Protein backbone atom coordinates (compact mmCIF):
# COMPACT_ATOMS: atom_id res chain seq x y z
CA UNK A 1 0.00 0.00 0.00
CA UNK A 2 1.12 3.55 -0.64
CA UNK A 3 1.88 6.07 2.07
CA UNK A 4 -0.55 8.73 3.22
CA UNK A 5 -0.35 12.23 1.86
CA UNK A 6 -0.45 14.68 4.76
CA UNK A 7 -2.54 12.14 6.64
CA UNK A 8 -4.85 11.37 3.72
CA UNK A 9 -5.02 7.77 2.51
CA UNK A 10 -5.75 7.76 -1.20
CA UNK A 11 -7.98 5.07 -2.70
CA UNK A 12 -5.42 4.38 -5.44
CA UNK A 13 -2.12 5.78 -6.73
CA UNK A 14 -3.46 7.82 -9.69
CA UNK A 15 -3.61 11.61 -9.58
CA UNK A 16 -5.25 12.99 -12.70
CA UNK A 17 -5.18 16.45 -14.23
CA UNK A 18 -8.32 18.16 -15.50
CA UNK A 19 -6.95 20.20 -18.43
CA UNK A 20 -7.09 19.72 -22.19
CA UNK A 21 -9.93 17.19 -22.44
CA UNK A 22 -12.10 17.31 -25.58
CA UNK A 23 -15.12 18.23 -23.43
CA UNK A 24 -16.20 18.54 -19.80
CA UNK A 25 -18.31 15.41 -20.24
CA UNK A 26 -15.28 13.37 -21.31
CA UNK A 27 -13.26 14.77 -18.41
CA UNK A 28 -15.98 13.72 -16.00
CA UNK A 29 -16.24 10.26 -17.52
CA UNK A 30 -12.46 9.80 -17.41
CA UNK A 31 -12.57 10.34 -13.66
CA UNK A 32 -15.61 8.17 -13.06
CA UNK A 33 -14.39 5.31 -15.26
CA UNK A 34 -10.86 5.27 -13.86
CA UNK A 35 -11.66 5.99 -10.23
CA UNK A 36 -8.76 8.45 -9.87
CA UNK A 37 -8.92 9.89 -6.37
CA UNK A 38 -7.13 13.22 -6.85
CA UNK A 39 -7.88 15.97 -9.37
CA UNK A 40 -5.43 18.76 -10.09
CA UNK A 41 -7.00 22.13 -10.84
CA UNK A 42 -5.89 25.72 -11.34
CA UNK A 43 -7.01 29.31 -10.96
CA UNK A 44 -7.49 31.58 -13.93
CA UNK A 45 -9.21 34.89 -14.56
CA UNK A 46 -12.95 34.53 -14.25
CA UNK A 47 -14.94 35.60 -17.29
CA UNK A 48 -18.27 37.39 -17.27
CA UNK A 49 -20.14 34.12 -17.90
CA UNK A 50 -18.87 32.50 -14.70
CA UNK A 51 -17.25 29.53 -16.46
CA UNK A 52 -15.27 28.76 -13.34
CA UNK A 53 -18.40 28.11 -11.30
CA UNK A 54 -19.69 25.48 -13.72
CA UNK A 55 -16.31 23.77 -13.71
CA UNK A 56 -16.13 23.86 -9.93
CA UNK A 57 -19.54 22.25 -9.58
CA UNK A 58 -18.50 19.38 -11.80
CA UNK A 59 -15.29 18.78 -9.85
CA UNK A 60 -17.12 19.01 -6.54
CA UNK A 61 -19.63 16.41 -7.74
CA UNK A 62 -16.81 13.97 -8.50
CA UNK A 63 -16.11 13.75 -4.77
CA UNK A 64 -12.33 13.53 -5.28
CA UNK A 65 -9.49 15.23 -3.42
CA UNK A 66 -8.68 18.54 -5.08
CA UNK A 67 -5.05 19.55 -5.59
CA UNK A 68 -4.78 23.13 -6.87
CA UNK A 69 -1.61 24.12 -8.68
CA UNK A 70 0.45 27.26 -9.16
CA UNK A 71 1.03 26.49 -12.83
CA UNK A 72 2.69 29.21 -14.84
CA UNK A 73 4.17 31.00 -11.84
CA UNK A 74 7.75 32.18 -12.31
CA UNK A 75 8.40 34.02 -9.03
CA UNK A 76 8.05 33.20 -5.33
CA UNK A 77 5.68 36.12 -4.84
CA UNK A 78 3.41 35.05 -7.68
CA UNK A 79 3.31 31.45 -6.48
CA UNK A 80 2.66 32.36 -2.84
CA UNK A 81 -0.16 34.74 -3.79
CA UNK A 82 -1.66 32.12 -6.10
CA UNK A 83 -1.49 29.56 -3.30
CA UNK A 84 -3.39 31.85 -0.95
CA UNK A 85 -6.07 32.44 -3.56
CA UNK A 86 -6.31 28.71 -4.19
CA UNK A 87 -6.66 27.90 -0.50
CA UNK A 88 -9.63 30.26 -0.27
CA UNK A 89 -11.34 29.18 -3.47
CA UNK A 90 -10.85 25.43 -3.13
CA UNK A 91 -11.01 25.30 0.65
CA UNK A 92 -7.94 23.07 0.95
CA UNK A 93 -4.47 23.35 2.44
CA UNK A 94 -3.05 21.23 -0.38
CA UNK A 95 -1.07 23.07 -3.02
CA UNK A 96 0.87 21.67 -5.96
CA UNK A 97 3.72 24.13 -5.97
CA UNK A 98 5.11 24.86 -9.41
CA UNK A 99 7.85 27.44 -9.91
CA UNK A 100 8.77 27.40 -13.55
CA UNK A 101 12.36 28.28 -14.36
CA UNK A 102 12.80 27.43 -18.02
CA UNK A 103 10.43 28.25 -20.85
CA UNK A 104 11.08 25.33 -23.19
CA UNK A 105 11.40 22.49 -20.69
CA UNK A 106 9.18 24.01 -17.97
CA UNK A 107 11.91 22.78 -15.62
CA UNK A 108 11.26 23.84 -12.02
CA UNK A 109 13.32 26.71 -10.61
CA UNK A 110 14.32 24.71 -7.57
CA UNK A 111 15.90 27.68 -5.75
CA UNK A 112 12.67 29.63 -5.75
CA UNK A 113 10.74 26.41 -5.16
CA UNK A 114 12.49 25.79 -1.83
CA UNK A 115 11.91 29.38 -0.73
CA UNK A 116 8.22 29.34 -1.64
CA UNK A 117 7.80 25.92 -0.01
CA UNK A 118 9.20 27.28 3.24
CA UNK A 119 6.94 30.33 3.22
CA UNK A 120 3.84 28.29 2.46
CA UNK A 121 4.64 25.47 4.91
CA UNK A 122 5.11 28.01 7.71
CA UNK A 123 1.74 29.44 6.75
CA UNK A 124 0.00 26.09 7.21
CA UNK A 125 -0.09 24.88 3.63
CA UNK A 126 0.50 21.24 2.77
CA UNK A 127 2.90 21.57 -0.12
CA UNK A 128 3.27 19.10 -3.00
CA UNK A 129 6.40 20.48 -4.70
CA UNK A 130 6.90 19.83 -8.41
CA UNK A 131 10.66 19.32 -8.43
CA UNK A 132 13.52 17.66 -10.25
CA UNK A 133 15.10 14.36 -9.23
CA UNK A 134 17.95 16.18 -7.43
CA UNK A 135 18.51 14.59 -4.00
CA UNK A 136 19.85 17.72 -2.34
CA UNK A 137 16.90 19.75 -3.50
CA UNK A 138 14.65 17.02 -2.17
CA UNK A 139 16.37 17.25 1.19
CA UNK A 140 16.00 21.05 1.24
CA UNK A 141 12.30 20.76 0.41
CA UNK A 142 11.80 18.37 3.31
CA UNK A 143 13.67 20.77 5.60
CA UNK A 144 11.40 23.54 4.32
CA UNK A 145 8.40 21.60 5.61
CA UNK A 146 7.29 19.50 2.65
CA UNK A 147 6.07 15.99 3.49
CA UNK A 148 5.72 14.91 -0.13
CA UNK A 149 8.10 15.17 -3.10
CA UNK A 150 7.01 15.17 -6.72
CA UNK A 151 9.95 14.77 -9.11
CA UNK A 152 9.34 15.03 -12.83
CA UNK A 153 9.52 11.96 -15.01
CA UNK A 154 10.11 14.12 -18.08
CA UNK A 155 9.08 17.65 -19.13
CA UNK A 156 5.38 18.45 -18.73
CA UNK A 157 3.32 17.22 -21.66
CA UNK A 158 6.28 15.55 -23.37
CA UNK A 159 5.08 11.97 -22.95
CA UNK A 160 8.68 10.76 -22.79
CA UNK A 161 8.19 8.67 -19.68
CA UNK A 162 10.92 8.34 -17.07
CA UNK A 163 13.96 10.18 -18.41
CA UNK A 164 16.22 9.30 -15.50
CA UNK A 165 15.28 6.02 -13.88
CA UNK A 166 18.64 5.87 -12.11
CA UNK A 167 17.96 9.15 -10.30
CA UNK A 168 14.38 8.25 -9.47
CA UNK A 169 15.55 4.96 -7.97
CA UNK A 170 18.17 6.84 -5.96
CA UNK A 171 15.49 9.20 -4.72
CA UNK A 172 13.33 6.29 -3.58
CA UNK A 173 16.30 4.82 -1.72
CA UNK A 174 17.29 8.15 -0.17
CA UNK A 175 13.81 9.01 1.12
CA UNK A 176 12.26 5.64 2.03
CA UNK A 177 9.56 7.12 4.28
CA UNK A 178 8.56 10.13 2.18
CA UNK A 179 5.58 9.83 -0.17
CA UNK A 180 7.01 10.23 -3.67
CA UNK A 181 4.99 11.02 -6.79
CA UNK A 182 6.23 11.01 -10.36
CA UNK A 183 4.65 14.16 -11.74
CA UNK A 184 4.75 14.97 -15.45
CA UNK A 185 6.19 13.40 -18.54
CA UNK A 186 4.15 10.19 -18.52
CA UNK A 187 3.00 9.16 -22.00
CA UNK A 188 2.03 5.52 -21.69
CA UNK A 189 0.67 3.17 -19.06
CA UNK A 190 4.00 1.32 -19.15
CA UNK A 191 5.72 4.52 -17.95
CA UNK A 192 3.26 4.83 -15.09
CA UNK A 193 3.70 1.17 -14.17
CA UNK A 194 7.48 1.58 -14.22
CA UNK A 195 7.26 4.48 -11.76
CA UNK A 196 5.20 2.35 -9.39
CA UNK A 197 7.52 -0.63 -9.79
CA UNK A 198 10.34 1.64 -8.60
CA UNK A 199 8.39 2.04 -5.39
CA UNK A 200 6.84 5.44 -6.00
CA UNK A 201 3.62 6.08 -4.12
CA UNK A 202 1.62 7.69 -6.90
CA UNK A 203 1.75 9.04 -10.42
CA UNK A 204 0.36 12.40 -11.48
CA UNK A 205 -0.48 12.80 -15.16
CA UNK A 206 -2.77 14.77 -17.41
CA UNK A 207 -1.81 15.14 -21.07
CA UNK A 208 -1.34 11.41 -21.69
CA UNK A 209 -5.01 10.87 -20.86
CA UNK A 210 -6.60 14.14 -21.98
CA UNK A 211 -4.96 14.18 -25.42
CA UNK A 212 -5.35 10.45 -26.13
CA UNK A 213 -7.79 9.55 -28.90
CA UNK A 214 -10.01 7.96 -26.27
CA UNK A 215 -9.31 9.69 -22.95
CA UNK A 216 -11.75 7.54 -20.99
CA UNK A 217 -10.14 4.30 -22.12
CA UNK A 218 -6.67 5.73 -21.50
CA UNK A 219 -7.64 6.82 -17.99
CA UNK A 220 -8.71 3.26 -17.26
CA UNK A 221 -5.48 1.92 -18.76
CA UNK A 222 -3.44 4.26 -16.56
CA UNK A 223 -5.29 3.12 -13.48
CA UNK A 224 -4.70 -0.54 -14.35
CA UNK A 225 -1.02 0.27 -14.90
CA UNK A 226 -0.40 2.07 -11.60
CA UNK A 227 -2.24 -0.63 -9.69
CA UNK A 228 -0.26 -3.37 -11.46
CA UNK A 229 2.99 -1.51 -10.79
CA UNK A 230 2.15 -1.07 -7.14
CA UNK A 231 1.19 -4.74 -6.75
CA UNK A 232 4.43 -5.75 -8.47
CA UNK A 233 6.50 -3.55 -6.17
CA UNK A 234 4.80 -5.01 -3.11
CA UNK A 235 5.46 -8.49 -4.48
CA UNK A 236 9.26 -7.92 -4.37
CA UNK A 237 10.39 -8.31 -8.00
CA UNK A 238 13.45 -10.34 -8.93
CA UNK A 239 16.74 -8.69 -9.81
CA UNK A 240 17.61 -8.49 -13.49
CA UNK A 241 20.66 -10.52 -14.57
CA UNK A 242 22.72 -10.66 -17.71
CA UNK A 243 22.79 -14.39 -18.38
CA UNK A 244 20.10 -17.03 -18.52
CA UNK A 245 19.20 -19.14 -15.53
CA UNK A 246 17.12 -22.18 -16.37
CA UNK A 247 13.72 -22.11 -14.75
CA UNK A 248 12.92 -25.76 -15.46
CA UNK A 249 14.77 -28.12 -13.09
CA UNK A 250 17.83 -29.81 -14.51
CA UNK A 251 17.72 -32.68 -12.03
CA UNK A 252 15.57 -35.52 -13.26
CA UNK A 253 15.93 -34.75 -16.94
CA UNK A 254 15.88 -38.03 -18.90
CA UNK A 255 19.11 -39.11 -20.56
CA UNK A 256 18.21 -39.16 -24.25
CA UNK A 257 21.31 -38.32 -26.23
Amino acid at each position, binding site marked *: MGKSFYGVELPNPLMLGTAQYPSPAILEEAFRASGAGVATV*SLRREGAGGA*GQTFWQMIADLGVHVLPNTAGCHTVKEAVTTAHMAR*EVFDTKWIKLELIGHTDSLQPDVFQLVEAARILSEDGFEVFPYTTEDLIVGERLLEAGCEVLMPWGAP*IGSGRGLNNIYALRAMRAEFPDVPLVVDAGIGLPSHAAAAMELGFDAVLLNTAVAKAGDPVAMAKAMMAAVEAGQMACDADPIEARDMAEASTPVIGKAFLS
Partner: protein
Amino acid sequence: MKIVLNGEAREVAATDLAGLLGECGFSGRVATSLNEGFVPAGLRAAQTLADGDRVEVVAPMQGG
Protein backbone atom coordinates in the same frame (compact mmCIF):
# COMPACT_ATOMS: atom_id res chain seq x y z
CA MET B 1 -12.93 55.79 -11.31
CA LYS B 2 -10.69 53.95 -13.73
CA ILE B 3 -9.21 50.63 -12.71
CA VAL B 4 -7.70 47.65 -14.50
CA LEU B 5 -9.78 44.52 -14.00
CA ASN B 6 -8.27 41.22 -15.16
CA GLY B 7 -6.00 43.13 -17.48
CA GLU B 8 -8.67 45.35 -19.02
CA ALA B 9 -9.20 49.04 -18.30
CA ARG B 10 -12.64 49.66 -16.79
CA GLU B 11 -14.62 52.65 -15.58
CA VAL B 12 -16.44 51.62 -12.38
CA ALA B 13 -18.70 53.22 -9.81
CA ALA B 14 -17.76 50.92 -6.92
CA THR B 15 -15.41 52.32 -4.30
CA ASP B 16 -14.48 49.07 -2.58
CA LEU B 17 -13.54 45.57 -3.74
CA ALA B 18 -16.76 43.88 -2.61
CA GLY B 19 -18.78 46.51 -4.44
CA LEU B 20 -16.69 46.00 -7.55
CA LEU B 21 -17.43 42.26 -7.61
CA GLY B 22 -21.16 42.98 -7.35
CA GLU B 23 -21.06 45.68 -10.00
CA CYS B 24 -19.21 43.45 -12.46
CA GLY B 25 -21.41 40.41 -11.86
CA PHE B 26 -18.93 38.12 -10.14
CA SER B 27 -20.34 35.59 -7.72
CA GLY B 28 -19.62 32.14 -6.36
CA ARG B 29 -16.11 30.88 -5.78
CA VAL B 30 -13.68 33.60 -6.76
CA ALA B 31 -10.49 34.93 -5.20
CA THR B 32 -9.22 38.46 -5.50
CA SER B 33 -5.98 40.37 -5.57
CA LEU B 34 -5.31 44.10 -5.52
CA ASN B 35 -2.09 45.42 -7.03
CA GLU B 36 -0.65 41.90 -6.97
CA GLY B 37 -1.47 41.27 -3.30
CA PHE B 38 -4.05 38.71 -2.13
CA VAL B 39 -7.20 40.14 -0.56
CA PRO B 40 -9.14 37.53 1.45
CA ALA B 41 -12.90 37.44 0.95
CA GLY B 42 -13.52 38.76 4.44
CA LEU B 43 -11.52 41.91 3.77
CA ARG B 44 -13.05 42.86 0.41
CA ALA B 45 -15.70 45.19 1.82
CA ALA B 46 -13.08 47.12 3.79
CA GLN B 47 -10.71 47.29 0.84
CA THR B 48 -11.19 50.68 -0.81
CA LEU B 49 -10.23 51.21 -4.43
CA ALA B 50 -8.20 54.01 -5.95
CA ASP B 51 -7.74 55.27 -9.47
CA GLY B 52 -5.37 53.04 -11.40
CA ASP B 53 -5.71 50.02 -9.10
CA ARG B 54 -5.08 46.64 -10.67
CA VAL B 55 -7.62 44.01 -9.62
CA GLU B 56 -7.55 40.33 -10.45
CA VAL B 57 -10.57 38.05 -10.01
CA VAL B 58 -9.84 34.36 -10.48
CA ALA B 59 -11.96 31.24 -10.34
CA PRO B 60 -11.54 27.44 -10.54
CA MET B 61 -10.27 26.27 -13.90
CA GLN B 62 -8.89 23.13 -15.48
CA GLY B 63 -5.31 22.39 -14.54
CA GLY B 64 -2.62 19.74 -14.65
